[in-house]
């Protein structure tokens, strides 16, 4: 049974030659018996009626898409063909040859009339590209790491003088108007604004808010060093101003790795004068973890705290005495170390809480160890572990083979920019790690329900491999600490 589809697209326009080509392309689509895409001029209306189409009222400035299909199921493919052919026609009308791509950010901004730049070139060239954005009067997000701190300060000062926002450098995550930049989770629009001097810290808050059913207006990254003494929170202040000026933002939360105390104090004082209430979720010794802070934010919002999701069966102890953390998220690693150090004592790390706890290049040490594989030192000449898991997986096997290991604690971070299916490689690796002695593996799986990888699908795949999986990194860490105590305590 043939199906007829006629739609009017008011105000859409293409010239008649282009539309003849479009009609011919669409008619060649499988399942399409006849197609006519035309401006609804008197002549064309007659032609369409002659073809047996019934038309609603339309004028010469309206485009008509008229399709006769072999059956209704062919409609989506046919409409997609219409859109593709129209897009191709537009491209063709701008001239025969395709212009060479832009070679600088300045050129790209000019050509596209873009109002945001996204910079992820090697750190040595990041400032140069970012300055193109600041010169053009637009904000910039700088994903690049290894940018010298004096360069960061120079560009942030210039941005401040021009009323612009530099998100980064080493800014992993931002959400602007629902659009995720860098490693960002898919969130529903809402009333919370986030300022984040921490990519994965921001992602943890996004994930928890999503689980609690709270939407996010924007998450503005500022770079991990923004609240350091050297930078002094320049971008944090600009981001706070922006969120304060946005009528859809009702509450703001500032998330940061351990900040410089005097900078944190100054920024808190600054925030106190804003019209929008600002909560500070700043990690540090003796400070609440991100989950606790998010729960407090939910309290501010009058939203009940849900039971944070857990997948898989509770892990059981299997001997050993040391907690071994393998992270892709720097802030998640920081948070885990801060929690674990309180009850387990010193944690060796490549991003240690104090300098004497630094690991050497082998990343191997006795006792409790937590490694941030996303740290600058481990990403030189290599993709971020959220993209390329090779290094962490190698280390997972090494740690699993070490009889001293009592628990392995890991994070998995979902969202735009991250691996398409991290569990595809990590789940078998976890199964292999547990093959010898059912080693407990606790995973914090940070993501939202709408993330492209599928939060529950990922978490369930990891759980099926024997991991105990939490949405909350703090909850996962507490479980890992408890499991370490059981066996370490038993050994004593």
């Amino acid at each position, binding site marked *: 049974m043939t199906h007829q589809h006629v739609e009017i697209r008011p105000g859409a326009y293409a010239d008649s030659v282009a539309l003849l080509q479009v009609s011919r392309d669409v008619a060649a689509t499988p399942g399409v018996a006849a197609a006519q895409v035309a401006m609804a001029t008197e002549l064309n209306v007659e032609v369409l009626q002659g073809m047996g189409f019934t038309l609603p009222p339309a004028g010469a400035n309206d485009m008509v898409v008229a399709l006769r299909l072999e059956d209704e199921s062919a409609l989506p493919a046919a409409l997609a063909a219409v859109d593709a052919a129209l897009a191709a026609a537009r491209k063709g009308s701008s001239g025969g040859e395709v212009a*060479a791509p832009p*070679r*600088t950010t300045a050129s790209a*901004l000019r050509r596209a009339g873009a109002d945001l730049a996204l910079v992820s070139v090697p750190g040595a*060239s990041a400032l*140069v590209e970012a300055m193109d954005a600041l010169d053009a009067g637009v904000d910039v997000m700088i994903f690049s790491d290894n940018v010298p701190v004096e360069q960061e300060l120079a560009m942030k000062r210039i941005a401040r003088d021009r009323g612009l926002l530099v998100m980064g450098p080493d800014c992993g995550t931002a959400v602007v108007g629902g659009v995720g*930049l860098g490693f960002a989770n898919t969130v529903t629009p809402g009333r919370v*604004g986030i300022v984040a001097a921490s990519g994965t810290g921001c992602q943890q808050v996004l994930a928890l808010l999503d689980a609690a059913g709270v939407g996010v207006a924007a998450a503005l990254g500022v770079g991990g060093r923004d609240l350091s003494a050297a930078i002094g929170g320049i971008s944090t202040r600009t981001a706070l101003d922006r969120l304060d000026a946005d009528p859809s*933002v009702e509450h703001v939360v500032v998330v940061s790795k351990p900040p410089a105390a005097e900078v944190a104090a100054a920024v808190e004082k600054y925030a106190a004068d804003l019209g929008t209430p600002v909560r500070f979720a700043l990690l540090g010794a003796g400070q609440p973890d991100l989950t606790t802070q998010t729960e407090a934010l939910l309290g501010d919002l009058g939203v009940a705290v849900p039971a944070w999701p857990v997948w898989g069966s509770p892990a059981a102890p299997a001997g050993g005495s040391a907690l071994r953390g393998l992270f892709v998220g720097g802030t998640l690693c920081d948070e885990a170390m801060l929690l674990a150090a309180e009850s387990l004592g010193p944690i060796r790390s490549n991003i240690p809480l104090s300098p004497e706890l630094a690991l050497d290049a082998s990343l191997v040490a006795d006792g409790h160890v937590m490694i941030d594989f996303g740290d600058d030192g481990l990403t030189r000449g290599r993709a971020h572990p959220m993209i390329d898991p090779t290094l962490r997986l190698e280390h997972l096997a090494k740690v699993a083979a070490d009889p001293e290991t009592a628990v392995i604690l890991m994070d998995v971070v979902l969202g735009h920019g991250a691996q398409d299916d991290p569990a595809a490689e990590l789940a078998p690796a976890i199964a292999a790690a547990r093959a010898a002695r059912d080693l407990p593996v606790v995973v914090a799986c940070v993501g939202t329900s709408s993330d492209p990888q599928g939060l529950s699908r990922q978490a369930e795949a990891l759980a099926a491999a024997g991991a105990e999986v939490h949405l909350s990194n703090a909850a996962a860490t507490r479980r890992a600490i408890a499991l370490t105590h059981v066996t370490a305590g038993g050994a004593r």
Partner: protein
Amino acid sequence: MTHALLPSTAPAAVAAVGADMFATAVADQAVPVERVEWTPPMDGTADDLATVAADPLRRDANALAVSRMLDVQAMLVGVAPASELLGLERGQFLHAGPPIEWARTSGPLRGALLGAAAFEGLVEDPEDAAALFESGTEVSLEPCHHRSAVGPMAGVVSPSMWMFVLEDPATGRRTYCSLNEGLGKVLRYGAYGPEVLARLHWMRDVLGPLLGEAVAAAGPVDATAILGQMLQMGDEAHNRNRAGTLMLMRDLAPSLVRSSRSADEIAEAFAFVGGNDHFFLNVAMPACKLALDAARDIPGSTMVVAMARNGTDFGIQVSGTGDQWFTGPAQLADGLFLGDYGPEDANPDIGDSAITETAGIGGFAMAAAPAIVRFVGGTVPDALATSRRMREITIGENDRWPIPVLDFAGAATGIDVSSVCRTGILPQINTGMAGKVAGVGQVGAGLVTPPASIFPAALAELARRTRDRA
């Protein structure tokens, strides 16, 4: 012009540079993305690029440089001898390009100097002048650029040569250029035979005074406006000046006819100018220099204000580094040859005429002159691509000089040393080729670029000055 985004509003479009996956992730969220085809900068320039990019003076300095340049109106206000205009004295010679001593001069520059010495009566036989220049006691060499002048090819100017005078009425600043001799065996290509000297004498005795009288009677001729019209008429004002030449003749014809000279002399002048499609080049060049000189000496500006070659060295000057020349070896042009000449006969790049490219025309506006793309060994698509590519290394566009086939986009204007170092794209120059042996003349025409090394050198000096200011 700041677009402070409301954080809850999605960006209209994003410019993405670096890892393609992030650009793809944005595009997947239905936001238009313009991807930069990024490549690492020229070797060893990353630190200097960052220093210069973060210079608080740079952005406004470059905007000022371009706007000063575009504000200039170049009016042809006179024609007079170099001795009067520049105070050039017997034995003083100007030449194209950065400074050079006789020992390092190339064939065509030597040929032109020998011919000019004979023209000035310093010697009877041009070849006898070599000893004068070797000893250097009675003669001196100086770049045209150091005297507010420019000269095509060898660019040799001696006191008795007549020069066009271009003036910016707003400031009274002036620039100068000799009169164009035509093509073939001519002094500027290094030829110095009797016919070359005879022509120079006629230009001194007839053409120069006649033009001087005509310009004075006609009143100032707007060279900047003619340049804009030329681009609509198939000229790029470096290797094709046919429309410009005709427009200049049109403007001067009534006063030429009314001049005090005989009808025969006037007819000779018409025939000479009408037979020389390059006649207007020597007006275009000082017009370009007049505009670019307005952009000089702006601290922090990375804009190139002169590109010039002496047949041995290619030199550039940059707004933010004063009169300093950054030089490297002049390159051989790639192009087509006249008659039996071949690449082995050609001298490296020579002339101040790259001032046209510095100002955004010539090779930069090749798209405006499809008729001559084959003359320099190119194709029409190459010409379109070149004119677009030059936009990647310039600070702005010149709306007074639109290029029709590029949808009237303004000529790419203000070469940015930083952009050249970032992209590795070198300025494209259309050029004539002189024979490398003194006395030969023109052997061909083609395309050439500056030596890449001079841009990092200029950048390093800009960075040094930036650090000194900090």
